[in-house]
């Protein structure tokens, strides 16, 4: 699962979706069975895609996720970029590209702060199915 995806998934329990605590899901507690594993996977760089997706990113949530995964380098607010092809913007767009699209969470777990349900990621694929007692 890419970090971009982590920025748009929340707890799938219906009762949680009404609370602000259902997003983002947290990587702060990992289990011994499924230890957190990150990897870098190359993706062709498209400055326009990053530029286009930037307004859709929930920046505070991205900061939380990045911090929980050990990255404290992000600016506090969404970078303001007017022209994705301007040379002065290349570095920041490349950095975001690496963070959002090339950082793979191979395995690990995500926790909902509201209900504490744990969602596992295995073989890069998160599982959002719910046990019977969490389905309305």
């Amino acid at each position, binding site marked *: 699962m890419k970090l971009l995806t982590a920025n748009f*998934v929340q707890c799938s329990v219906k009762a949680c979706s009404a609370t602000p605590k259902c*997003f983002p899901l947290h990587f702060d507690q990992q289990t011994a069975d499924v230890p957190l594993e990150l990897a870098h996977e190359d993706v*062709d760089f498209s400055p*326009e895609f990053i530029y286009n997706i930037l307004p859709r990113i929930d920046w505070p949530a991205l900061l939380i996720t990045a911090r929980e995964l050990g990255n404290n380098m992000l600016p506090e607010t969404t970078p303001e970029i007017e022209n994705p092809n301007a040379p002065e913007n290349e570095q920041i767009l490349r950095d975001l590209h690496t963070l959002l699209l090339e950082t793979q969470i191979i395995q690990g777990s995500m926790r909902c702060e509201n209900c504490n349900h744990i969602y596992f990621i295995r073989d*890069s*694929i998160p599982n*959002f199915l719910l*046990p019977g*007692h969490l389905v309305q």
Partner: protein
Amino acid sequence: MPEYLVLLAQTHESFRKAELEALAVLENISVDLSSHDEKSPFLYVTLQDDDEAKRLIQRSILARAVYELWGKADSENALHEDVRHRSSSRFEKYKTPSFKFDFISHRGSRTKSQQRDMFESFDYLGFDGPIKMRDPDEIFTIIEEYEPAYHSNTDPPRLSHIFFGRFIGESQRDVVDKYDLKKRRYIGTTSFDAELALISCNIALAGPQKIVYDPFAGTGSFLVAASHFGAMALGSDIDGRQIRGKKARNITTNYDQYKLQSFFLDTFVGDFTHNPIRASFKLDAIVCDPPYGVREGLKVLGSRDTERYADKKPTVLENGDLSHLRPDYIPPKKPYHFDALLDDLLEFAARNLVDEGRLCCWMPTANEDYGERTIPKHPELELISNCVQEFNRWSRRLLTYVRKVREGDDAGLVSSHREKKVYSQVQFRDKYFSGFSATANSVV
């Protein structure tokens, strides 16, 4: 403005116009397609210039090629007359470039020497440039069509139309073969026909810098089609086995096969009625073939036994472990109604699509009871096309909706005004198995 001839494939005719309309939107081209005739492989369009013509069909699956129209008639003699009348002012421009002639016949054929005679009958064009069979500067094409021979094989076929034009550009029809399911490494029982998947993604305006989502992704048929056009593809499915595949054959290896790895966003296992995508995250398009439960009854998360989880407590195993934390835990599922799922899908699309983003969704219908009523509606979505693929007793439709532009402060907010609906007890699945004849009894 010059007139162009678009040569169309004689298949999936009801999708051709919708595809071209979508491509015109993508390329920001204003074009009148009202003369489109589903029975004819020819479509005349008036466009600004060659560049527009090229751009209009360069992504098309159902067009074959586009030509600048130099003449059209119903006989060879009349064609020459029309070319002289319509295009003599063009002759001078093509006096010196290299060129070749091409010949295309519908429902007919001509021998090589007959074709050569035809080419030579155009000597009045006065082209002096070298004839090059490979990479000429210009290709001039004669296209003819014969009337269908309904009854006898003895009468010679009658010429109905003949055209002469200058080749402008090709479509992408050849990629249908590249994505053919027979050559795809990872497929399943629900894999979707490659040609129609590509067409669906064209109609959905899938393209660079966009995110396209398939909530019923299965083996990822729509994902690779969307990625082919340069979109970042996101997929989910309640069936984790299909999403994961096998070690050496899965959705990711399909992406490797087509060298599209950079256009794969993610897949996740999830139930559409408990979708984890946050409401504020906007998608550019949704393309899907929702499960109508012929292969398997339609299921969503939940339990048939409403009492079973009434206490909202997790199940504890004998050894004290919580059952749902075991890696082999299988969540309970219950049957669901297809119409309810479609309504959920429209509601999700209204909530999560960008303004003017598109929902392209396939829907099966039993021909006997198809009517306006059958098409799901949503106040925030405008139905813009309804294309049909006919089978013997049933058909399936590609419904395309556009998310209306949100107004003012309302942007992104959709009130939940859904009425409680009572869904018909007879489902498509039941009709499918009863041969669409007598009204079947429901299983739900």
